[in-house]
């Protein structure tokens, strides 16, 4: 008589792979490190499946389950690396003076570039670096322009005074205004 199929909240029976992934998530870090080592070792798939059955109480019916699990683990690790990069970049961008909204816009472009080039990690990083440089440059320009406009408003009377001086050349007026807006 076959074992009763256990139902899940989604209404589907739980597969061996789902049970294995659930068991994996419950493992401590040292245990996961041990299994990572075994999964990348020279051991045969059958041997690994025997040990998984004995220690984790999960029976994987065929060798390709381990292959699929390795692919899933790689994808998980890549997403984990990406998450760490996102948080690190967020701190860098915020420390550089961007608002959270501006930083998230930059980060989103990077995440999108990575996702589209996900099969080629190096290409993804290269693409995201290029797009980030462009985006950061555009944001820097916007920020500079806004800061300059704000400085003009604050110093309007002084700027008018310079502009009204008949004896100054245009170049001298420009230098004087530059000094007012951006004192050295």
């Amino acid at each position, binding site marked *: 008589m076959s074992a009763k199929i256990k139902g899940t*909240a989604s209404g589907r029976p739980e597969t061996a792979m789902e049970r294995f992934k659930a068991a994996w998530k419950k493992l401590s870090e040292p245990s996961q490190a041990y299994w990572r080592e075994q999964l990348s070792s020279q051991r045969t798939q059958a041997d690994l499946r025997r040990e998984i059955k004995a220690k984790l109480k999960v029976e994987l019916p065929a060798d390709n389950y381990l292959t699929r699990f390795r692919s899933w683990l790689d994808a998980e690790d890549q997403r984990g690396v990406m998450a760490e990069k996102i948080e690190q970049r967020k701190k860098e961008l915020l420390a550089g003076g961007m608002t959270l*909204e501006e930083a998230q816009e930059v980060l989103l472009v990077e995440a999108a570039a990575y996702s589209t080039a996900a099969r080629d990690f190096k290409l993804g990083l290269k693409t995201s670096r290029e797009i980030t440089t462009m985006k950061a440059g555009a944001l820097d320009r916007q920020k500079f322009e806004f800061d300059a406009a704000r400085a003009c408003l604050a110093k309007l009377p002084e700027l008018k005074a310079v502009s009204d001086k008949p004896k100054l050349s245009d170049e001298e007026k420009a230098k004087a205004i530059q000094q007012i807006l951006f004192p050295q």
Partner: protein
Amino acid sequence: MTARETSIAAAILDAMHNYDGGQAHELTIHADATLIFRVEIPRNEFAAVFADLNRRGAFLGVATEFKGTLWSLTPRGEKIRQEMK
């Protein structure tokens, strides 16, 4: 939910379904959902739909030390996704 919000929600749920039980940062989910949606999802629209789905119990968020909060799809989220099909 408007028709657009429902479409965005479907894209988010499909992206997370593709993680096959795995976790991802919100920005990665946004990027992957945008690929499925085929048109850029504005940040404020994504955040509103994501928050709504989260309130309905579709996601599990786990705060980490260095990676921010990582999100995964719950069985309830999978059920919501199936109901949208």
